[in-house]
């Protein structure tokens, strides 16, 4: 059984809804990154989630996010390196 973790995502869609936090359960596979987890959510749980990324290889900087209070690249930040529920904004 794949272990799972909690991913909390800060979301905002101007004119549609105000800022809110959504909580998702994501698989914690070996070497899963925050970006992988966001794609898991997009694919399997919520087709309306939106985030920017391009190279997925820590070269372009498009997926810069605040992850657990620190500015990080989502494609370069492994879930295993984070403690507790993961907060993405």
């Amino acid at each position, binding site marked *: 059984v794949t272990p799972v973790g909690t991913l909390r995502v800060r979301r905002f*869609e101007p004119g549609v809804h105000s800022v809110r936090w959504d909580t998702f359960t994501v698989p914690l596979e070996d070497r899963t990154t925050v970006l992988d987890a966001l794609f898991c959510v*997009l*694919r399997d749980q919520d*087709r*309306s*989630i*939106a*985030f*920017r990324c391009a190279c997925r290889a820590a070269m372009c900087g498009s997926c810069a996010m605040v992850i657990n209070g620190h500015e990080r690249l989502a494609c370069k930040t492994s879930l295993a390196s984070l403690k507790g529920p993961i907060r993405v904004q």
Partner: protein
Amino acid sequence: MGGVKIDAQCHADLPGLLAAGEDSGGTHGSNRLGGNGVAESTVFGAIAGEVAAREASEVTPAQLDLAQVAQIERRALQPLEGGTSGEDPFAIRSTLESLMWDNVGLVRDRDGMTHALDQIRALHARSTRLAVPSSRRLNLAWTEALDVQNLLQVAEAVAHSALVRTESRGAHYRSDFPEQDDARWLSNVYLRYDGAMEPRLWTEPVAFTRMSPPVAVVS
């Protein structure tokens, strides 16, 4: 290695279209060594940029075929109107990835690539009725739908040209044709989509203008 056919000034066959770097083909012959793509992008990117800047002020824009524009627009917007019964672009992409890895990957053969082409065409048929949420605002499922249509076309071009090349050369290795065959295959394979479902495919001999390939050593 594959890519858009260009001339020395990076012109593609379509007037006004230039391509450089990994989007263009031919510079590295049958294999591209790791890191050499950066050099190609730098050199040909500079050429393409200079040529584009010079020609942008000189070239008369081509007349748009408005019927074709409308057709492309319809195709792009279709997934937004797919409702709840359409095909899932993520599922098609995942199937395509496994299909290409298993059958058109590092080691290929005729049976695998023939199977892959059949499956790609089936996936292509499914990709004409995709469904994603209807928002046009940073809709990642929609971009996935647009991507997957392009991926299917590239996958078909790769599998089709690799199936035709009945030899092994560079990064192209076929277990059913493990030897390089210079007698038949000092050639490039070209594909062109003229609007028909099937691409037109042909080969042209490589023009050796400066250097010739070494004569193969028969063991």
